[in-house]
């Protein structure tokens, strides 16, 4: 009522706690699902190294895998120096 009737008069529309709750939940659930255990991260790193090693000569020890989070997106970040490309073997 406040937001509808009086809100029109005073020109302010304050977000209801209901709307805030819904938005917070939607974000919280996304973040909850993005939580990755170290175990999974390690396994993923190993698989990625295996794939890259098929095409490039890389320094396996300096490879770094990370999950970066910003306001509303998260990214898988992988840094590795490439020593040389592997020659295609027919």
């Amino acid at each position: 009522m406040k937001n509808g009737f009086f809100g029109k008069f005073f020109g302010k529309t304050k977000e209801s706690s209901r709307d805030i709750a819904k938005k917070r939940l939607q974000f919280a659930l996304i973040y909850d699902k993005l939580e990755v255990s170290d175990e999974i991260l390690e396994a993923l790193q190993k698989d990625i190294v295996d794939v890259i090693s098929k095409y490039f000569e890389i320094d396996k020890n300096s490879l770094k895998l990370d999950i970066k989070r910003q306001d509303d997106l998260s990214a898988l970040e992988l840094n590795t120096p490439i020593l040389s490309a592997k020659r295609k073997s027919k």
Partner: protein
Amino acid sequence: MSTQKRGADLKGKVIVITSGKGGVGKTTTTASLGAAIASLGKTVAVVDMDIGLRNLDVVMGLENRIVYNVVDLALGRCQVKQAAIRDRRIKGLYLIPASQSDNKNSLNTDDMARVTKKLKQEFDYILIDCPAGIEQGFENSVTGADEAVVVCTPEVSAVRDADRIIGLLYARSITPKLIVNRIVPQMVINGDMLSHKDVEDVLSIELIGLVEMDDRVIAATNTGSYITNDKTSKAGQAYTRIAQRMLGDKTIPIKEPDYDQKGIWSKIGSKLGLKK
């Protein structure tokens, strides 16, 4: 409970009532649905899996009649007939109480698989009252479950936990259905509470029922009686409709709370075209 041997003929359906978070009305929901389904002519066993913190017995008013419990049954210390307490008020309704002296790790999933198998031979419906949490008690409760009902209140903490539980149920190939409990329509109108639609949007699972906040649920629990026997109670009516849908009657609509009971100013406002 039928006395005749049914052999390996498993007639029953096991439904676990779960939520993740405690205090959202799982036990009341289990008792009410058990009473409603039995009143519709089916045989029902409600099983309290909150071992060490049993409460379904007091909610149902059967606390003075406990001899054996679910741990006794699981470990073979008694028969189904001995563990199941017959409710004298509603034909076909039985309670298998939790043990109060053991803890949640007293049973494992193999024990529970045996219990549900035995119960399926004797009853049409087996409702499992799952404890809060995601530990062994949850694992035991979902073992052998054919279906699941997730109870959730319109609060951020309950919804978040429900989402976690839904994920765990999907991982076990169980597709849960949702009951939104303790809705206060006036608070939803005022913008101070999530509506059932909000909860449904966030969790995106099929809805099976909506239960409004109802003081008479507390009064019924005080006396150990069933809210479904209070024909004028909104919550009681809601549980009876959920029971009918659980028995497969698709013609029973989900009754939505009245979110349109506007205040006088709001009505005048909409008459004047001021409301959006």
